C-alpha cells in the first residue's frame, strides 16, 4: 500500500502523497516534489528520500532515473542549536549596531 510507505522520514511524507502531488501539479523534478510535499525539508535534508523520490518520478513519468536531479543540500550540514551560534557572536548590541537593513534608509 502506497499510503503505508513513508518516503521522507523526517517530514512523514508517504509514497501516495508524492505520487498524488506529481500528478496534481505536473511535477518533474525532486526539487519540485520537495517544495510541494516537504519531502527532503527536514533534519536530514533528503539524504535518504531524495533518491527514492527520483525513483518514484522515474516510474511515474516513464523516464530514466536522473543523477543530476537531486535536491540542493543546504547548510548547516548538521542541525545546530541557536544559542551555540548566538554565543559565537556574543553581543546582541554588537549585532544590532551593524545597522538596519532596508536598502532605502
Amino acid at each position, binding site marked *: 500500500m502506497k499510503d503505508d510507505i513513508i518516503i521522507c522520514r523526517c517530514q512523514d511524507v508517504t509514497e501516495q502523497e508524492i505520487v498524488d502531488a506529481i500528478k496534481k501539479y505536473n511535477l518533474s523534478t525532486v526539487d519540485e516534489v520537495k517544495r510541494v510535499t516537504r519531502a527532503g525539508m527536514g533534519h536530514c535534508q533528503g539524504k535518504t528520500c531524495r533518491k527514492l523520490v527520483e525513483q518514484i518520478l522515474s516510474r511515474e513519468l516513464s523516464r530514466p532515473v536522473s543523477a543530476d536531479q537531486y535536491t540542493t543540500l543546504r547548510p548547516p550540514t548538521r542541525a*545546530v542549536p541557536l544559542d551555540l551560534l548566538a554565543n559565537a557572536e556574543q553581543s546582541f548590541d554588537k*549585532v544590532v549596531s551593524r545597522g538596519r537593513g532596508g536598502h*532605502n534608509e
Partner: protein
Amino acid sequence: MSNLPKTAELVIIGGGVIGTSIAYELAKRGMKDIVLVEGDTISSGSTGRCGGGIRAQWSTPENVRLAMASVERFKSLESELETELEFEQGGYLILAHSDQELQQFESNVKMQKSLNLDVDLITPSQAKEIVPSLNIEKITGATWCPSDGSINPFLLNFAYARAARQKGVKIFQHTKVIGIEHKAQKITGINTDQGKISTNQLVNAAGGYAGFIGKLAGLDLPVVPHRHEILATEQINRFFKNMIMSFEYNLYFRQVMDGGIVGGQTNPGELPGTDIKSGLTFLKEMSVKLTHFIPKLKQVKVIRQWAGLYCTSPDAQPILGKIENLAGYYQAIGFSGHGLMLAPRTAVLMANCIADPDFQDEDLSRLNLDRFKHGIVSGERSVV
C-alpha cells in the same frame, strides 16, 4: 527537446507567483494561446525562497491598498483554486524600539486606518499578551494588525500554475530567455535556449532577473537584485501564529504551520548581485536576535539556511503595467521582497490592463515606471 510553440498571443517570462498568477487571471478572462517560460522550475526563484508573510501595514497608500485587496483575494483563493494553501490570518506584530520609531508608526497607523485597515498602536505589555514568550525589554511599543497573516508560498505558486494550465496556459520549464525582439517600438518575439516564439505581447515577471530581461528588450530598468538570507529551525510545538518584525533590529520571523521557525534579515551592506550563497555571519546574527526576542528558542536547532533575491526598486514599491515607446511590453517587477503578498491583486490589475486597453486604475497608474521621470518623491519605509 522542448516542443515550444512557434507563436503565442502572449508570453509571460517567469514561473514565480507573479508570472503564474497573471497567467491564471488572463486565462480566466478568456485569453487563449498564453505561453509561460521559466528558466528553472516553478518556485525556484524568489517565491520559493521567501518567508511567506502577508501584511497590509505599509507606509505608502499604494502598498496598503494593493495588500488589503490581496488579503481579500487570499480569503477566497483556496476555494477558487481548489486546493489547500495554508493561508492563515495570524496577524503581524511590528516592534518599535524608540520614541522616534513609535512616532513614525503612529503616522503609518493613521494613514492605514484612513484606508479602513484594522490596525492599532499597542503597548509592550499588550504585545506580550499576543506573544507571551516575547522578550519586551528593548521594545517601546508595537503595531498590531490581526488581519495580516501568512501562506505557504510553494502551494500558492503551484496552485496558480495548475489552475493556469487547466485553463489552457502552456508552461515551459528549463526554458531560458536569451533575446527579445522588437521592431518599430513594438514587441515581435522572444528567443529562448529552446527556440523562438513570435509574439506581440510579453510580460516581464522575472523577479530578481527582471533587470536582465529588460536589458534584452533594450530597456534600462531601475531595479537591482539583492541577496537576502533566511533560515528554518526544526519543528517544535506551535506557540505563536503571527509574524514578528522589527525594522530597527532588522528581522522578521514566524512559526510556520508545520512547527519550524522561519526568519530572515537584510544583510547590512549587501551589494547588488544575483549570488544566492548562504553565509555563517547571517546564521550567527539571526541566532543572536531570535534568542533575544524569544529566549525559549535557545535550545532549538537550525536545520536549513538559504537565500533569495529581492528585486529592489528605487522606492521599494512594485513597477507595474505598460511602458512608453515599446508596445506589447508589460511588467510586474521591483516588488522589493514583497511580491508574494501583493500577487493576487497585482495579477488582477495586470490581467485587466492587458485584456482591456482602456482599463484605468489609480494604483496601476501611480505604480507605472513613468513615476521615476521626475525623480523619487518618497518611498516605502517599512522594509526589512
